[in-house]
Protein backbone atom coordinates (compact mmCIF):
# COMPACT_ATOMS: atom_id res chain seq x y z
CA UNK A 1 0.00 0.00 0.00
CA UNK A 2 1.23 3.42 -0.93
CA UNK A 3 1.80 6.17 1.67
CA UNK A 4 -0.08 8.96 -0.06
CA UNK A 5 -0.85 11.57 2.56
CA UNK A 6 1.11 12.58 5.64
CA UNK A 7 -0.58 11.64 8.89
CA UNK A 8 -0.51 15.18 10.31
CA UNK A 9 -1.74 16.77 7.08
CA UNK A 10 1.54 18.23 5.83
CA UNK A 11 1.34 18.99 2.13
CA UNK A 12 4.55 17.40 0.94
CA UNK A 13 6.88 14.63 2.01
CA UNK A 14 9.67 17.13 2.50
CA UNK A 15 7.65 19.73 4.42
CA UNK A 16 8.95 20.39 7.93
CA UNK A 17 6.63 20.86 10.88
CA UNK A 18 6.31 24.50 12.04
CA UNK A 19 9.53 25.71 13.67
CA UNK A 20 10.13 28.41 16.26
CA UNK A 21 13.47 29.32 17.80
CA UNK A 22 14.63 31.86 20.34
CA UNK A 23 18.08 32.73 21.66
CA UNK A 24 18.73 33.82 25.25
CA UNK A 25 15.86 32.19 27.16
CA UNK A 26 17.74 31.22 30.35
CA UNK A 27 19.30 34.23 32.03
CA UNK A 28 21.45 32.25 34.49
CA UNK A 29 23.26 30.46 31.63
CA UNK A 30 26.15 31.88 29.59
CA UNK A 31 24.18 31.09 26.45
CA UNK A 32 20.79 29.51 25.85
CA UNK A 33 18.10 28.77 23.30
CA UNK A 34 14.67 27.27 22.74
CA UNK A 35 13.91 25.30 19.58
CA UNK A 36 10.53 23.82 18.77
CA UNK A 37 9.58 21.76 15.72
CA UNK A 38 5.98 20.56 15.69
CA UNK A 39 5.30 19.24 19.18
CA UNK A 40 8.95 18.53 19.96
CA UNK A 41 10.51 21.28 22.07
CA UNK A 42 14.03 21.63 23.46
CA UNK A 43 15.74 24.04 25.82
CA UNK A 44 19.52 24.25 25.70
CA UNK A 45 21.79 26.04 28.18
CA UNK A 46 25.54 26.56 27.83
CA UNK A 47 27.81 27.06 30.83
CA UNK A 48 31.45 27.89 30.28
CA UNK A 49 34.12 27.73 29.18
CA UNK A 50 34.75 26.98 32.86
CA UNK A 51 37.19 24.89 34.87
CA UNK A 52 36.76 21.18 34.29
CA UNK A 53 36.31 18.84 37.24
CA UNK A 54 37.50 16.17 37.80
CA UNK A 55 40.90 17.48 36.82
CA UNK A 56 42.10 14.22 35.31
CA UNK A 57 39.59 14.82 32.52
CA UNK A 58 41.24 18.12 31.58
CA UNK A 59 42.91 18.40 28.17
CA UNK A 60 46.00 20.66 28.34
CA UNK A 61 45.83 21.63 24.65
CA UNK A 62 42.18 22.59 24.27
CA UNK A 63 38.78 22.89 25.90
CA UNK A 64 36.32 20.00 26.09
CA UNK A 65 32.69 19.99 24.99
CA UNK A 66 30.34 18.06 27.27
CA UNK A 67 26.67 17.44 26.44
CA UNK A 68 23.79 16.21 28.55
CA UNK A 69 20.42 15.31 27.01
CA UNK A 70 17.42 14.73 29.22
CA UNK A 71 13.68 14.28 28.65
CA UNK A 72 11.49 15.83 31.32
CA UNK A 73 9.54 13.08 33.13
CA UNK A 74 6.20 14.19 31.63
CA UNK A 75 7.47 14.95 28.11
CA UNK A 76 6.50 11.73 26.36
CA UNK A 77 3.16 10.13 25.62
CA UNK A 78 1.99 7.42 28.04
CA UNK A 79 4.41 6.35 30.73
CA UNK A 80 6.40 8.79 32.81
CA UNK A 81 10.09 8.93 31.88
CA UNK A 82 11.94 7.94 35.02
CA UNK A 83 14.49 10.56 36.04
CA UNK A 84 18.14 9.62 36.26
CA UNK A 85 20.63 8.28 33.77
CA UNK A 86 19.51 5.69 31.26
CA UNK A 87 21.22 4.11 28.26
CA UNK A 88 19.20 5.98 25.68
CA UNK A 89 19.86 9.43 27.18
CA UNK A 90 23.55 8.64 27.62
CA UNK A 91 23.95 7.58 24.02
CA UNK A 92 22.07 10.61 22.72
CA UNK A 93 24.24 12.88 24.90
CA UNK A 94 27.31 11.29 23.32
CA UNK A 95 26.14 11.61 19.70
CA UNK A 96 25.00 15.18 20.40
CA UNK A 97 28.51 16.03 21.58
CA UNK A 98 29.96 14.52 18.43
CA UNK A 99 27.42 16.35 16.26
CA UNK A 100 28.38 19.74 17.68
CA UNK A 101 32.11 19.42 18.31
CA UNK A 102 33.34 19.66 14.68
CA UNK A 103 32.31 23.34 14.35
CA UNK A 104 33.73 24.46 17.70
CA UNK A 105 37.18 25.92 18.16
CA UNK A 106 38.17 25.42 21.80
CA UNK A 107 41.96 25.73 21.34
CA UNK A 108 42.06 28.92 23.38
CA UNK A 109 40.52 27.21 26.41
CA UNK A 110 42.99 24.57 27.65
CA UNK A 111 41.78 22.53 30.64
CA UNK A 112 38.33 24.09 30.40
CA UNK A 113 34.92 22.61 29.69
CA UNK A 114 31.94 23.94 27.80
CA UNK A 115 28.83 22.31 29.24
CA UNK A 116 25.69 22.01 27.14
CA UNK A 117 22.51 20.94 28.93
CA UNK A 118 19.52 19.99 26.79
CA UNK A 119 16.09 19.48 28.38
CA UNK A 120 12.93 18.53 26.51
CA UNK A 121 9.56 19.53 27.98
CA UNK A 122 7.57 17.98 25.13
CA UNK A 123 8.49 15.33 22.55
CA UNK A 124 6.90 14.00 19.36
CA UNK A 125 9.86 12.31 17.62
CA UNK A 126 13.01 14.07 16.43
CA UNK A 127 14.04 15.05 19.94
CA UNK A 128 17.81 14.58 19.50
CA UNK A 129 17.73 16.73 16.37
CA UNK A 130 15.72 19.47 18.11
CA UNK A 131 18.20 19.32 21.00
CA UNK A 132 21.16 19.72 18.63
CA UNK A 133 19.50 22.69 16.87
CA UNK A 134 18.84 24.38 20.22
CA UNK A 135 22.35 23.63 21.49
CA UNK A 136 23.93 25.09 18.40
CA UNK A 137 22.06 28.40 18.84
CA UNK A 138 22.92 28.39 22.56
CA UNK A 139 26.64 27.89 21.85
CA UNK A 140 26.60 30.87 19.48
CA UNK A 141 24.66 32.88 22.07
CA UNK A 142 27.37 32.04 24.63
CA UNK A 143 30.01 33.44 22.29
CA UNK A 144 31.90 30.16 21.96
CA UNK A 145 34.14 30.36 18.84
CA UNK A 146 32.40 28.45 16.04
CA UNK A 147 32.97 27.97 12.33
CA UNK A 148 29.27 27.51 11.65
CA UNK A 149 26.01 26.46 13.29
CA UNK A 150 24.80 22.87 13.19
CA UNK A 151 21.42 22.01 11.70
CA UNK A 152 19.66 18.74 12.41
CA UNK A 153 16.47 16.99 11.37
CA UNK A 154 15.40 13.43 10.71
CA UNK A 155 14.74 11.89 7.34
CA UNK A 156 13.82 8.36 6.35
CA UNK A 157 11.21 6.23 4.74
CA UNK A 158 7.52 5.80 5.52
CA UNK A 159 5.89 3.09 3.47
CA UNK A 160 7.02 3.66 -0.12
CA UNK A 161 7.97 7.33 0.34
CA UNK A 162 11.15 9.09 1.36
CA UNK A 163 10.19 11.76 3.89
CA UNK A 164 11.77 14.49 5.97
CA UNK A 165 11.01 15.26 9.63
CA UNK A 166 9.04 12.21 10.77
CA UNK A 167 6.67 12.73 13.67
CA UNK A 168 5.71 9.99 16.11
CA UNK A 169 2.68 8.88 14.07
CA UNK A 170 4.92 8.37 11.04
CA UNK A 171 7.53 6.48 13.03
CA UNK A 172 4.71 4.18 14.15
CA UNK A 173 3.35 3.66 10.59
CA UNK A 174 2.39 0.01 10.27
CA UNK A 175 1.35 -0.47 6.63
CA UNK A 176 4.89 -0.69 5.27
CA UNK A 177 8.56 -0.32 6.09
CA UNK A 178 9.68 2.64 8.19
CA UNK A 179 13.14 4.01 8.72
CA UNK A 180 14.14 6.93 10.88
CA UNK A 181 17.44 8.63 10.08
CA UNK A 182 18.47 11.52 12.34
CA UNK A 183 20.97 13.72 10.53
CA UNK A 184 23.04 16.72 11.61
CA UNK A 185 24.95 18.81 9.11
CA UNK A 186 27.40 21.67 8.84
CA UNK A 187 25.28 23.81 6.52
CA UNK A 188 28.14 25.69 4.85
CA UNK A 189 29.96 22.53 3.77
CA UNK A 190 27.20 19.91 3.68
CA UNK A 191 29.29 17.58 5.88
CA UNK A 192 27.41 15.22 8.20
CA UNK A 193 28.13 15.26 11.94
CA UNK A 194 25.33 12.93 13.05
CA UNK A 195 24.02 9.95 11.15
CA UNK A 196 22.02 7.18 12.73
CA UNK A 197 19.24 4.97 11.52
CA UNK A 198 16.80 2.37 12.65
CA UNK A 199 14.36 0.49 10.47
CA UNK A 200 15.10 -0.53 6.91
CA UNK A 201 15.78 1.31 3.67
CA UNK A 202 17.35 0.55 0.28
CA UNK A 203 20.64 2.16 -0.61
CA UNK A 204 18.96 4.11 -3.40
CA UNK A 205 16.36 5.53 -1.01
CA UNK A 206 19.02 6.30 1.58
CA UNK A 207 20.93 8.43 -0.91
CA UNK A 208 17.67 10.09 -1.96
CA UNK A 209 16.84 10.80 1.71
CA UNK A 210 20.25 12.39 2.31
CA UNK A 211 19.79 14.54 -0.78
CA UNK A 212 16.31 15.71 0.28
CA UNK A 213 17.30 16.42 3.87
CA UNK A 214 20.09 18.74 2.75
CA UNK A 215 17.51 21.14 1.33
CA UNK A 216 15.55 21.11 4.59
CA UNK A 217 18.69 22.05 6.49
CA UNK A 218 18.71 25.46 4.81
CA UNK A 219 15.26 26.17 6.18
CA UNK A 220 16.40 25.25 9.70
CA UNK A 221 19.60 27.29 9.25
CA UNK A 222 17.56 30.41 8.46
CA UNK A 223 15.39 29.96 11.56
CA UNK A 224 18.51 29.52 13.73
CA UNK A 225 20.23 32.57 12.26
CA UNK A 226 17.09 34.66 12.68
CA UNK A 227 16.86 33.66 16.34
CA UNK A 228 20.39 34.99 16.85
CA UNK A 229 19.74 38.13 14.79
CA UNK A 230 16.66 38.87 16.89
CA UNK A 231 18.78 38.85 20.03
CA UNK A 232 21.77 40.62 18.47
CA UNK A 233 20.29 43.08 15.99
CA UNK A 234 23.64 44.89 15.65
CA UNK A 235 24.74 41.92 13.56
CA UNK A 236 27.80 40.64 15.37
CA UNK A 237 29.46 43.94 16.31
CA UNK A 238 28.19 43.53 19.85
CA UNK A 239 30.97 42.30 22.11
CA UNK A 240 28.73 40.92 24.82
Amino acid at each position, binding site marked *: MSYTKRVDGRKSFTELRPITAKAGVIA*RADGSAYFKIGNTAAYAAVYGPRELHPRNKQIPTRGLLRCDYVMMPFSGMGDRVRPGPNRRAKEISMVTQKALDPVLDLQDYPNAVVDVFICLPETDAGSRCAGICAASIALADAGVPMKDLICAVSTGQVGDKVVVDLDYAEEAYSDGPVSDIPVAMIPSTGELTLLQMDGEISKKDLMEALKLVKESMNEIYEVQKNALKDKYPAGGDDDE
Partner: protein
Amino acid sequence: MSESRKHITEYLKKGLRLDGRKLDEFREVSVEYGVSKNAEGSARVKIGGTEVIAGVKLNIGTPYSDRPDEGTLMVGVELYPLASPEFEAGPPSIDSIELARVVDRGIREAGAIDNKALCIEKGEKIWIVSVDICPINDEGNLFDAAGLAAIAAIMDAKFPKVEKDGTVNYKERTKTPLPIKKRPIPITVWRIGNDLIVDPINEEEKSTDARLTIASLSDGVICALQKGGDATLTVEDVDKMTDLAIAKAKDLRSKLGGKSK
Protein backbone atom coordinates in the same frame (compact mmCIF):
# COMPACT_ATOMS: atom_id res chain seq x y z
CA MET B 1 29.73 39.14 57.08
CA SER B 2 29.97 39.05 53.30
CA GLU B 3 29.87 42.25 51.24
CA SER B 4 26.66 41.13 49.62
CA ARG B 5 25.02 40.53 52.97
CA LYS B 6 26.17 43.93 54.28
CA HIS B 7 24.69 45.59 51.24
CA ILE B 8 21.39 43.73 51.56
CA THR B 9 21.10 44.52 55.28
CA GLU B 10 21.77 48.23 54.75
CA TYR B 11 18.98 48.36 52.21
CA LEU B 12 16.60 46.42 54.43
CA LYS B 13 17.12 49.00 57.18
CA LYS B 14 15.67 51.55 54.77
CA GLY B 15 12.76 49.22 54.03
CA LEU B 16 14.07 48.37 50.58
CA ARG B 17 15.41 45.42 48.58
CA LEU B 18 18.33 45.25 46.17
CA ASP B 19 15.95 45.43 43.23
CA GLY B 20 13.85 48.24 44.72
CA ARG B 21 10.97 46.11 45.98
CA LYS B 22 9.37 46.41 49.41
CA LEU B 23 10.08 43.64 51.91
CA ASP B 24 6.72 41.92 51.42
CA GLU B 25 6.52 42.45 47.68
CA PHE B 26 6.61 39.66 45.08
CA ARG B 27 8.04 40.08 41.60
CA GLU B 28 5.56 39.69 38.75
CA VAL B 29 3.88 36.27 38.82
CA SER B 30 2.37 34.54 35.80
CA VAL B 31 0.77 31.12 35.26
CA GLU B 32 0.32 29.51 31.86
CA TYR B 33 -1.54 26.23 31.39
CA GLY B 34 -1.14 23.38 28.91
CA VAL B 35 2.52 23.91 28.03
CA SER B 36 3.40 20.25 27.31
CA LYS B 37 0.90 18.31 25.22
CA ASN B 38 1.94 14.79 26.19
CA ALA B 39 1.49 15.48 29.88
CA GLU B 40 -2.05 14.95 31.18
CA GLY B 41 -1.68 18.39 32.78
CA SER B 42 1.03 21.03 32.71
CA ALA B 43 1.79 24.60 33.67
CA ARG B 44 4.55 27.16 33.43
CA VAL B 45 5.05 29.55 36.34
CA LYS B 46 7.22 32.64 36.18
CA ILE B 47 8.10 34.68 39.25
CA GLY B 48 10.25 37.51 37.95
CA GLY B 49 13.12 35.82 36.10
CA THR B 50 12.52 32.46 37.79
CA GLU B 51 10.76 29.98 35.52
CA VAL B 52 9.55 26.46 36.21
CA ILE B 53 7.51 23.92 34.27
CA ALA B 54 5.42 21.29 36.03
CA GLY B 55 3.76 18.30 34.39
CA VAL B 56 1.32 15.64 35.56
CA LYS B 57 1.35 12.04 34.34
CA LEU B 58 -1.52 9.69 35.07
CA ASN B 59 -0.84 5.97 35.04
CA ILE B 60 -2.78 2.95 36.26
CA GLY B 61 -1.08 0.87 38.92
CA THR B 62 -1.79 -1.30 41.93
CA PRO B 63 -2.60 0.22 45.33
CA TYR B 64 -0.57 -0.17 48.50
CA SER B 65 -1.85 -3.14 50.49
CA ASP B 66 -2.63 -0.99 53.54
CA ARG B 67 -4.66 1.44 51.42
CA PRO B 68 -6.40 -0.79 48.86
CA ASP B 69 -8.99 1.80 47.83
CA GLU B 70 -6.75 4.86 47.41
CA GLY B 71 -4.80 6.27 44.50
CA THR B 72 -1.34 7.68 45.08
CA LEU B 73 0.37 11.00 44.53
CA MET B 74 4.05 11.57 43.97
CA VAL B 75 5.80 14.92 43.54
CA GLY B 76 9.32 15.14 42.17
CA VAL B 77 11.65 18.03 41.46
CA GLU B 78 14.50 17.82 38.95
CA LEU B 79 17.13 20.49 39.57
CA TYR B 80 18.65 20.26 36.10
CA PRO B 81 22.05 21.96 35.74
CA LEU B 82 20.37 23.74 32.81
CA ALA B 83 18.69 26.15 35.20
CA SER B 84 21.59 27.41 37.29
CA PRO B 85 25.40 27.22 37.46
CA GLU B 86 24.93 26.04 41.05
CA PHE B 87 23.03 22.85 40.15
CA GLU B 88 25.17 19.83 39.44
CA ALA B 89 24.49 16.81 37.28
CA GLY B 90 24.12 13.50 39.06
CA PRO B 91 21.84 11.96 41.66
CA PRO B 92 19.24 14.22 43.29
CA SER B 93 20.84 16.71 45.67
CA ILE B 94 19.48 17.20 49.18
CA ASP B 95 18.14 20.57 47.96
CA SER B 96 15.98 18.98 45.29
CA ILE B 97 14.80 16.28 47.69
CA GLU B 98 13.79 18.86 50.30
CA LEU B 99 12.06 20.99 47.67
CA ALA B 100 10.12 18.02 46.32
CA ARG B 101 9.12 16.82 49.77
CA VAL B 102 7.93 20.25 50.90
CA VAL B 103 5.76 20.64 47.79
CA ASP B 104 4.60 17.03 48.12
CA ARG B 105 3.58 17.53 51.76
CA GLY B 106 1.74 20.74 50.95
CA ILE B 107 -0.45 18.89 48.47
CA ARG B 108 -0.69 15.52 50.18
CA GLU B 109 -1.36 16.62 53.75
CA ALA B 110 -3.93 19.17 52.67
CA GLY B 111 -5.86 16.32 51.09
CA ALA B 112 -5.77 18.41 47.93
CA ILE B 113 -6.68 15.39 45.84
CA ASP B 114 -9.41 12.93 46.82
CA ASN B 115 -7.33 9.74 46.87
CA LYS B 116 -10.41 7.53 47.17
CA ALA B 117 -11.77 8.93 43.91
CA LEU B 118 -8.56 7.70 42.24
CA CYS B 119 -9.47 4.08 42.97
CA ILE B 120 -10.65 2.17 39.90
CA GLU B 121 -10.99 -1.30 41.41
CA LYS B 122 -10.40 -1.89 45.11
CA GLY B 123 -7.17 -3.74 45.82
CA GLU B 124 -6.41 -4.05 42.10
CA LYS B 125 -6.29 -0.84 40.13
CA ILE B 126 -5.74 2.79 41.01
CA TRP B 127 -4.57 5.96 39.33
CA ILE B 128 -1.03 7.05 40.15
CA VAL B 129 -0.63 10.81 39.90
CA SER B 130 2.98 11.84 39.22
CA VAL B 131 3.78 15.53 39.36
CA ASP B 132 7.25 16.52 38.17
CA ILE B 133 8.60 20.02 38.51
CA CYS B 134 11.48 21.19 36.35
CA PRO B 135 13.08 24.61 36.86
CA ILE B 136 14.21 26.25 33.60
CA ASN B 137 15.86 29.29 35.17
CA ASP B 138 16.56 29.84 38.87
CA GLU B 139 16.64 33.49 39.88
CA GLY B 140 15.47 32.77 43.40
CA ASN B 141 12.37 31.51 45.25
CA LEU B 142 12.09 28.12 43.58
CA PHE B 143 10.07 26.91 46.59
CA ASP B 144 7.08 29.10 45.88
CA ALA B 145 7.37 28.79 42.10
CA ALA B 146 7.47 24.98 42.36
CA GLY B 147 4.49 24.87 44.73
CA LEU B 148 2.38 27.13 42.52
CA ALA B 149 3.37 25.23 39.36
CA ALA B 150 2.48 21.89 40.95
CA ILE B 151 -1.03 22.93 41.91
CA ALA B 152 -1.54 24.64 38.54
CA ALA B 153 -0.48 21.49 36.64
CA ILE B 154 -2.81 19.38 38.81
CA MET B 155 -5.66 21.78 38.02
CA ASP B 156 -4.86 21.53 34.30
CA ALA B 157 -4.87 17.71 34.24
CA LYS B 158 -7.53 15.64 32.48
CA PHE B 159 -7.84 11.85 32.61
CA PRO B 160 -6.90 9.95 29.45
CA LYS B 161 -9.53 7.66 27.93
CA VAL B 162 -9.75 4.15 29.36
CA GLU B 163 -10.82 1.57 26.78
CA LYS B 164 -13.32 -1.19 27.56
CA ASP B 165 -10.51 -3.73 27.93
CA GLY B 166 -8.94 -1.56 30.64
CA THR B 167 -6.01 -0.21 28.65
CA VAL B 168 -5.31 3.51 28.68
CA ASN B 169 -5.57 5.39 25.40
CA TYR B 170 -3.24 8.34 25.92
CA LYS B 171 -4.07 9.80 22.53
CA GLU B 172 -7.56 10.65 23.67
CA ARG B 173 -8.22 12.75 26.70
CA THR B 174 -11.53 12.96 28.53
CA LYS B 175 -12.92 16.19 29.96
CA THR B 176 -12.74 14.80 33.49
CA PRO B 177 -10.35 16.73 35.76
CA LEU B 178 -8.57 15.27 38.77
CA PRO B 179 -10.72 15.05 41.91
CA ILE B 180 -9.33 18.22 43.48
CA LYS B 181 -10.72 19.13 46.86
CA LYS B 182 -8.42 21.95 47.94
CA ARG B 183 -5.75 24.17 46.44
CA PRO B 184 -2.86 24.68 48.86
CA ILE B 185 -0.37 27.45 48.07
CA PRO B 186 3.05 27.40 49.74
CA ILE B 187 4.71 30.71 50.56
CA THR B 188 8.21 30.91 51.98
CA VAL B 189 9.13 33.72 54.34
CA TRP B 190 12.83 34.42 54.78
CA ARG B 191 14.52 36.03 57.78
CA ILE B 192 17.62 38.15 57.22
CA GLY B 193 18.73 39.62 60.56
CA ASN B 194 15.49 40.87 62.07
CA ASP B 195 13.77 41.51 58.77
CA LEU B 196 11.28 39.23 57.06
CA ILE B 197 11.06 39.13 53.28
CA VAL B 198 9.24 37.10 50.62
CA ASP B 199 10.25 36.08 47.11
CA PRO B 200 14.05 36.48 47.41
CA ILE B 201 16.45 36.78 44.50
CA ASN B 202 19.57 34.55 44.52
CA GLU B 203 21.73 37.02 46.49
CA GLU B 204 19.07 37.37 49.17
CA GLU B 205 18.65 33.60 49.46
CA LYS B 206 22.38 33.27 50.13
CA SER B 207 22.24 35.91 52.87
CA THR B 208 19.34 34.31 54.69
CA ASP B 209 19.49 33.19 58.32
CA ALA B 210 16.33 31.11 58.35
CA ARG B 211 13.27 30.43 56.26
CA LEU B 212 9.84 29.02 56.85
CA THR B 213 7.64 27.58 54.11
CA ILE B 214 3.96 27.75 55.00
CA ALA B 215 1.37 26.11 52.76
CA SER B 216 -2.13 27.40 53.31
CA LEU B 217 -5.64 26.97 51.91
CA SER B 218 -8.11 29.59 50.73
CA ASP B 219 -9.71 29.75 54.19
CA GLY B 220 -6.33 30.45 55.82
CA VAL B 221 -5.90 26.96 57.28
CA ILE B 222 -2.23 25.93 57.34
CA CYS B 223 -1.50 22.57 55.73
CA ALA B 224 2.30 22.19 55.74
CA LEU B 225 5.34 23.76 57.37
CA GLN B 226 9.05 23.45 56.77
CA LYS B 227 11.75 25.42 58.55
CA GLY B 228 15.04 25.79 56.78
CA GLY B 229 18.31 27.66 57.20
CA ASP B 230 20.89 27.48 59.96
CA ALA B 231 19.49 30.04 62.39
CA THR B 232 16.67 29.74 64.89
CA LEU B 233 13.16 31.13 64.76
CA THR B 234 11.27 32.55 67.74
CA VAL B 235 7.58 31.90 68.23
CA GLU B 236 7.05 35.62 67.50
CA ASP B 237 8.85 35.11 64.18
CA VAL B 238 6.51 32.26 63.32
CA ASP B 239 3.52 34.41 64.24
CA LYS B 240 4.56 37.18 61.83
CA MET B 241 5.73 34.80 59.10
CA THR B 242 2.43 32.93 59.11
CA ASP B 243 0.37 36.12 58.75
CA LEU B 244 2.56 37.23 55.88
CA ALA B 245 2.41 33.84 54.14
CA ILE B 246 -1.38 33.59 54.37
CA ALA B 247 -1.77 37.10 52.94
CA LYS B 248 0.65 36.39 50.08
CA ALA B 249 -0.96 33.02 49.33
CA LYS B 250 -4.18 34.92 48.60
CA ASP B 251 -2.34 37.06 46.00
CA LEU B 252 -0.76 34.04 44.33
CA ARG B 253 -4.03 32.12 44.36
CA SER B 254 -5.57 34.85 42.24
CA LYS B 255 -2.88 34.19 39.58
CA LEU B 256 -4.31 30.71 39.02
CA GLY B 257 -7.03 32.51 37.06
CA GLY B 258 -10.44 31.18 36.09
CA LYS B 259 -9.52 27.62 37.02
CA SER B 260 -9.14 28.58 40.69
CA LYS B 261 -11.93 28.26 43.22
